[in-house]
């Protein structure tokens, strides 16, 4: 398929547009997604094409909006819920963590919740509401959780999420939003949920990363290549269910693992990745598993301390050098 160079958010909007054209049951609801075009242009152009019947501005009622989606989805619609920012996920927690995920199992498969919940997280020029809560949701049975790092993956995973018959939580990183541009295949381009991807092959150490940290890991890998260290960058892409086979395959090859994400290190998804490897690939490990994540304070607002807070390429480099000390 021919591609064009578009941004991360443009790729997501393109995916939604294509799926809405394809299936009249797909609709979007959220705050300021209509005439305003979405916060940070998250739905830019959709209201003009699909109108108020399918692009619905909700009041500030995250919990009701989520519950409405669960009910509508059980009736066969395919809602896309735009929760403006990850900081507002807790406001809809019962619907997202207790209700949507359990329907299919509870009804013995008679009902399902084909719901896509998209939300913006992470650092970026906007500097607000950046909390990364993905680890919470990966702990909940019945949810699928994705977190792409490139426009092409974002498009392919958004299309897969919309067509998926389970609730999918789709995390959009704000630094990537308008900040990365990529060749994105037009039309039918799907990335299966549940598959990680090696973004850069290497034989010495695996760096498993998510979203913006994939880019930091690639930057670290380029710098480390100069020192003769070959880093394999594994983009997890789907966080639940984790692509355990891909993680194990990479670690079995390299024997060393660093996990990097922007969320808090303690209790973050990196713990699950590390624990899985310590359980299932222990024999291949040549070194401790190091995790790179945020320190245990709330995400600060001001750029200066935000920089001090955020994990960066230098942290990844230090971790890689740390595990490389072990022969």
């Amino acid at each position: 398929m021919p591609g064009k160079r578009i941004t991360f958010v443009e790729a997501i909007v393109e995916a939604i547009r294509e799926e809405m054209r394809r299936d009249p049951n797909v609709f979007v609801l959220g705050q300021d997604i209509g005439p305003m075009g979405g916060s940070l242009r998250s739905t830019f152009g959709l209201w003009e094409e699909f109108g108020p019947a399918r692009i619905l501005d909700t009041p500030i009622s995250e919990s009701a909006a989520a519950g409405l989606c669960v009910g509508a989805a059980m009736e066969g619609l395919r809602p896309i819920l735009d929760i403006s920012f990850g900081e507002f996920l807790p406001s809809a927690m019962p619907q997202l963590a207790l209700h949507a995920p359990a329907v299919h199992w509870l009804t013995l498969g008679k009902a399902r919740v084909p719901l896509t919940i998209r939300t913006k997280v992470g650092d970026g020029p906007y500097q607000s509401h950046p909390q990364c809560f993905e680890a919470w949701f990966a702990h909940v049975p019945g949810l699928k959780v994705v977190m792409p790092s490139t426009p092409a993956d974002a498009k392919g995973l958004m299309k897969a999420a919309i067509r998926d018959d389970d609730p999918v939580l789709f995390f959009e990183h704000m630094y990537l939003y308008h900040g990365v541009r990529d060749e994105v295949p037009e039309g039918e381009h799907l990335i299966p949920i549940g598959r990680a991807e090696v973004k850069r092959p290497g034989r010495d150490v695996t760096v498993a990363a998510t979203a913006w940290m994939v880019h930091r890991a690639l930057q670290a890998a380029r710098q480390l290549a100069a020192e003769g260290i070959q880093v394999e960058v594994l983009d997890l892409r789907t966080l639940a269910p984790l692509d355990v086979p891909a993680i194990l395959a990479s670690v079995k090859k390299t024997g060393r693992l660093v996990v990097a994400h922007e969320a808090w290190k303690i209790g973050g998804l990196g713990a699950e990745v590390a624990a899985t490897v310590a359980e299932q690939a222990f024999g291949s490990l040549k070194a401790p598993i190091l995790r790179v994540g945020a320190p245990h304070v709330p995400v600060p607002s001001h750029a200066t301390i935000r920089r001090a807070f955020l994990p960066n390429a230098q942290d990844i480099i230090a971790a890689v050098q740390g595990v490389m000390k072990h022969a």
Partner: protein
Amino acid sequence: MIEDPKAALAMHRWMVTSRVLDEVCCQESAHWFPAEGEEAVPVGAFYGLRPDDVCAPAYRGAPVVYLMRGATLEQVLAGALGKRTSFARGRHFSFTAPIALRILPYIAGDLGPIISQATGTAFAQKYRKSDNVTVVSFGDGTSNRGDFHEAVNLGAAWRLPVVYVIQNNHYAISLRIEKATAAKALVDRAAGYGLPGVAVDGNDVLAVHATVQEAVRQARAGGGPTLIEAETFRMRGHFAADTAPYRPAAEVEEWRGRDPIRRLEERLAAAGLLSAEAAQAVWSAVRGEVEAARAAARQHPDIRPTDLGLEQMFATPVQEARDAR
């Protein structure tokens, strides 16, 4: 005057069924939530809906709604007995609903979210331009959850075809509604959302039925939602084994005088529609049916350890995507 004798007699029988079923289920399960004295609300509110409408009855008294929609007594009893044939195969409480009958299940144990979900099924009904409606009921206590506020407001703002029914039985477990809110009446909340609010005697099944049906007509015609408060009383404890020592006995006795089944029987008798003997016959017939169903349900297979259903977690399995690697 009784406008529709056939409906009135049918609702009588459903109320009797609810009462008898409740007694039996309380014997079977200490965790059963008895609806004694409140039958007029589930029966009146959910009787006479179309099979393709969506129902979301309050957990207390919900089983009679399943029956009115076509479930069998045996199925409901299988739930109380914890049999493999229960609607959720033991994954959730026995009162989890049969989704195939267009009844929203209680997905989790927290009260409130179902109000939003019912608003969502109404949204789907409107989105599809059908003339179906959703009727949802819930307790007085539940109306103090944020979910109530957000959902009813949204349903009203979007004029969705939904009827919200508060089954006010005066208590949330041990807390009297007067201690839970300073509102004079819960239906007074309607004005704050811009939808009609109607109070109805929740121990008068014909009144409940007429009120809900009027709201249903309005919703079907595109006139948007209504909030209805049906005032009734929880005659027993919160669950079967709860003796409710936290409340005055006099209050319970006072409400016993307003028993909804006896009240309907008196009206039916006065209208010459149901003699005392005929009423007695209904009770015995129902008792027989329920006992027969209990005996039959006892023979149903037990839940097996393999019923955990790990493989049913996802509707779209992930493995396939992985295997296509």
